[in-house]
């Protein structure tokens, strides 16, 4: 009985961890769905967004070190702090500006190029943004607090203890992440199904040439998609940054999203969620049951094994569209 309860606790926590992976995977899906580009920079976008949010919140002077080095001044902070909600809105604005700049300076010049060229461009973008974030906000670890609580949910612990005799560990941050992810997915689905811009985005995704021929602006769609992906990155950055501080390793959470994408498919929003849940539960259960026999630390590689297993039977992923190219 005890083992069963422990397993149930691992499953619940695996589902929660899966939601955190899905938050990152969603950004990849949005851009791939609309433009066929695998955005290597998505993890760095999350980092950049979180750095910007903390910087705005704490009233940090951007590029302070650079300005100080050139002018000999000692600038650090403006001397004010910005409320969390306003800081989030301002950061979302920065992400829209970033999307505009990416479209203007990079994507516009690569229209009609092969996907691999666009993919290579996003690799360059990732390293550029990493450096830009460093120069703008510094490399130190920053605490992020937007009011989302962390730590064990005592309500869930008491409730499960009453029900089963064993109090489950459920992190309040994970509960919040689940609610936020659900709202985000609902909003994204509603946007793509029921708004003019959303339908235009789907039209471009289905057939770019046909979409262009009916007057849809590819430029507008790309800016819009990169802006939305930037916002999703901001949400992922907030959740992961709250968990362990905002720092450069935050960009590596993209590694956690890759197996989710392989499993759920690169073009499906529900796929990103379901894929995340399967990966989360799968890796946690494997670590719990098999990990101790093989020395532990199995999660990083097992997530990919799980994704590969699914790929063997369904190459386009669980929810991905099968690509048929006729010659």
């Amino acid at each position, binding site marked *: 009985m005890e083992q069963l309860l422990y397993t149930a606790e691992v499953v619940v*926590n695996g589902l929660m*961890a899966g939601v955190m992976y899905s938050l990152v995977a969603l950004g990849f899906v949005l851009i791939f769905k609309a433009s066929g580009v695998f955005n290597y920079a998505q993890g760095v976008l999350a980092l950049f967004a979180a750095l910007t949010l903390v910087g705005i919140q704490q009233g940090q002077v951007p590029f302070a*070190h650079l300005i100080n080095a050139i002018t000999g001044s000692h600038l650090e902070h403006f001397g004010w702090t910005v409320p969390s909600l306003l800081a989030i809105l301002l950061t979302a604005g920065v992400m829209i500006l970033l999307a505009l700049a990416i479209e203007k300076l990079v994507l516009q010049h690569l229209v009609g190029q092969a996907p691999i060229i666009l993919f290579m461009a996003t690799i360059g973008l990732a390293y550029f943004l990493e450096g830009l974030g460093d120069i703008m906000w510094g490399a130190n670890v920053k605490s992020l607090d937007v009011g989302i609580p*962390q730590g064990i949910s005592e309500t869930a612990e008491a409730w499960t203890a009453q029900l089963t005799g064993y109090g489950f560990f459920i992190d309040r941050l994970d509960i919040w992440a689940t609610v936020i992810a659900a709202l985000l997915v609902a909003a994204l689905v509603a946007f793509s199904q029921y708004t003019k811009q959303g339908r235009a985005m789907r039209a471009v995704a289905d057939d770019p040439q046909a979409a262009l021929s009916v007057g849809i602006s590819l430029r507008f769609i790309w800016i819009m998609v990169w802006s939305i992906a930037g916002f999703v990155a901001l949400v992922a950055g907030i959740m*992961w940054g709250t968990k*362990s501080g905002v*720092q450069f390793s935050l960009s*590596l959470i993209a590694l956690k999203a890759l197996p989710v994408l392989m499993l759920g498919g690169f073009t499906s929003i529900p796929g990103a969620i379901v894929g995340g849940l399967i990966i989360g539960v799968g890796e946690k259960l494997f670590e719990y049951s098999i990990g101790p026999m093989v*020395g*532990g630390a199995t999660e990083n590689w097992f997530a990919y094994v799980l994704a590969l297993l699914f790929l063997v039977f369904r190459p386009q992923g669980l929810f991905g569209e099968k690509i048929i190219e006729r010659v």
Partner: protein
Amino acid sequence: MTLRFASLAAAAVLMAAGPAMADLVVPHLSYRTGPYAPNGTQYADGFNDYFTLLNERDGGIGGQKILTPECETAYNTEKGVECYEATKGDAALIYNPMSTGITYQLIPKAGADQKVLYTPGYGRTSAKNGKVFEWVFNAPANYWDGASVAVKHMLEQEGGDVNGKKIALVYHNSAYGKEPIRTLQELGEKHGFELMEVPVDPPGQEQKSQWLQIRREKPDYVILYGWGVMNQAAIQEAANIRFPMDHMIGIWWSGSEVDVQPAGAGADGYKSLTFNGVGTDYPFYDDLKTHVIDAGKASQGGQYVGSAVYSRGVYAALIIGEAIRTAQELAGSPEIDAAQLRDGFEALNITEERMAELGLPDFGQPIQLSCENHGGAGMARLQQWDADEQKWSLITDFMEPDAEVLAPLIEEDSAAYAQEAGITPRCG
């Protein structure tokens, strides 16, 4: 950024003209980018600032300026080796790569090239045995010393008896994190505690499984051997499961401000080992302020001065500086080569009085090295985090590790290396 420009300029000058023969060249393999940058940057700043102070205040050591051309490794072993190869020209005296992975690669190379490798508090533990590792020094303490002192502290906490207790080792699943396992197993046999090994794959942002396991198995103590984001995630998860923070002890690489600050009040009471003082309450910092910070010559404007990892960078530079000074005295000349620096290290004797003269009384333990002993006494002390005050406080004196357990392990491991590398032990 000031530092980076300065370092680039220094490197460019070096590459273009080469150092003057009289300069003391200490290539600085640092990491200011990548996932480990928050700690790497602070250490690099402290390392640079100490030598800048010597150059500005004293005109260098023995009248010779110290050059520290910086090379970015990003804590990546391949890049670290590239940096070594690119900078090992004749004038380079010593390397302090700040990475156990890079150290393992450089040990045979440094021996072949006759360069000193100095790895304070990291690297290959058995390099303490100078009979086998002629060119490597790891004073004042190593990973095994750290594990032993952590257990010693637990013994003190438990009234001298940890028999039947369970101790979890949460470790970075790398060469570094695995170093203390054997020591803790041996100490477990001696003192009767059960060791629970909990590896975390780097970088380690996600540790839910590991901490659920700890919550289920309820160890009495947790020892943390982490680095980078793994530390912040581990301390946060420990707070999440309400693990008593004063029963969680990190190695010195899990004991910086950036490790505990993201967890906020949850990190209050967390302990870590250290072999250097923290804060700026030492006379040394008056000189640093006058000659380096106020003169606008501090690395990155001196923003990390006094932090735990910055202080460790200062301490590493201080020990190298003292070894250079000793080497100059032995050679009877301010111009020395790497072989003479090795001799200087082997004759190194930093007393409490000398530390006071340097403006850092009680900052570090006395260090006396020899041909046989490249690791010093291996003492460490504990610091505890005060989340309200946002600072570390030293809570114990320096404690000696358990030589009875460690000495045979060092002998065994270094003998295995000597056999593998075909080294004939030296020192008569």
